[in-house]
């Protein structure tokens, strides 16, 4: 049986993008810019092409792991439901790593590289997953005995869920929903470069992971998110969008003068440098906190 939720949902994605464009145009909430949207859409298509070309690496990896499975989980609705929840937990940790370890960020930065936040941003997907092998985060689920097909199914459903949360058209969902699920409001915070919002809300489907692991930040009505990355790209070239951070990392490693520097440039948080001359999200947050306390010392 071949059931690919992402492929099946593609016509719906297109209809929703068109509906959102019309909403933004006539309701005035949200932003679209043609070249940005074109880049996002091309990145989405490219990720499908790269996924098809290099998907065999994940299958090969899965077959390496599967002989060590602790048990065999049979296909059933409860099994799929449990797999979906556990997969979302592994997604949380992968995603957190993707913001805190430059190796994974080099791939994931693509998704954050738009200064817009609309449904096309959801489709701005990386091409370099085969380089960073982030799928190792799926290994625990394989070892628990979940079939490869089930992981592919729940991974696809997770991706489909995350599509609709990339919008400014929806302000807040009902309170109970906001409490449990990832929503446009929570995910806007995740895509924001405002110092107070940096490195937060890593959830895929269930925001409860962020609440459990201390990374949840609610959207503040008084501070509108500004989207993009700390050093926004000045290009729409899809290849540069996809691989710029890999090239930056390679250049840094080539110029490193010690093993410590090599390790730091690959595995430390994005922006790390030996002399501290560059900015990481931690240093930006610290500088912002200093500025705020200087502004209002009584607080």
């Amino acid at each position, binding site marked *: 049986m071949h059931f690919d939720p992402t492929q099946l949902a593609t016509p719906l994605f*297109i209809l929703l*993008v*068109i509906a959102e*464009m*019309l909403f*933004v*145009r006539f309701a005035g909430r949200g*932003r*679209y*810019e*043609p*070249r*940005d*949207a*074109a880049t996002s*859409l*091309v990145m989405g*298509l490219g990720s*499908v*092409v790269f996924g*098809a070309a290099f998907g065999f690496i994940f299958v090969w990896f899965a077959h390496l792991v599967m002989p060590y499975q602790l048990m065999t989980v049979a296909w059933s609705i409860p099994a799929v439901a449990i797999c979906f929840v556990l997969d979302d937990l592994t997604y949380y940790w992968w995603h957190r790593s993707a913001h805190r370890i430059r190796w994974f960020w080099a791939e994931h930065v693509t998704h954050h590289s738009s*200064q*817009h936040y609309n449904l*096309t941003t959801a489709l701005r997907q990386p091409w370099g997953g085969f380089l960073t092998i982030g799928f190792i985060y799926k290994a625990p689920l394989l070892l628990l005995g979940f079939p490869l097909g089930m992981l592919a199914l729940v991974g696809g459903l997770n991706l489909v869920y995350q599509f609709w949360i990339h919008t400014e058209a929806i302000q807040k969902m009902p309170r109970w929903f906001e409490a449990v699920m990832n929503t446009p409001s929570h995910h806007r915070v995740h895509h924001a470069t*405002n*110092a107070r919002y940096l490195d937060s809300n890593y959830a895929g489907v269930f925001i409860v992971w962020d609440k459990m692991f201390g990374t949840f930040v609610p959207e503040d009505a008084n501070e509108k998110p*500004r989207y*993009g990355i700390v*050093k*926004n*790209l*000045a*290009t729409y070239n899809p290849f*540069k969008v996809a691989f*710029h951070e890999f*090239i*930056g990392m390679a*250049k840094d490693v080539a110029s490193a003068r010690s093993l410590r520097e090599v390790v730091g440039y690959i595995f430390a948080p994005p922006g790390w440098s030996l002399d501290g*001359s560059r900015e990481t999200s931690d240093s930006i947050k610290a*500088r*912002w906190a*200093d*500025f*705020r306390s*200087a502004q209002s010392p009584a607080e």
Partner: protein
Amino acid sequence: MNGQLFYLAISLAGIAAMVGLCVVLFGRGIATLDPSVAEAEMGFEVPGFRPGAFVLSADSRAALIEDAAHHKLYLIAVRGDGYVIRPVSRASLKSAARDGASLALRFSDFTFPKAALAFADEQTARDWEAKLKAA
């Protein structure tokens, strides 16, 4: 193989249609710069930013601005309907060449390799060339 090429062709046609609709609905969406916009952008980018010297290119697409609080120079350039900001320092600036009233800047940044700013007069370009080289 034919099926995959068909899927690719349909996808590209779909992308072209969506981008076309985007152009129809939103136009080309080009931002422009003025001192107040530049200061607001810098205020967000650099906590504690205090505006110092400022110069806007003749086409209002790029500006050089000094942060008087931290004594640093920045380039702010229009990108689509938004802006891109880069600090200008000895580490980031590869060269600054003046040609009459224009300045051509080259950066050691793969995603922002160069910028060209044309000013109203040659003296302005000369003054900012000196500032950039001293940065």
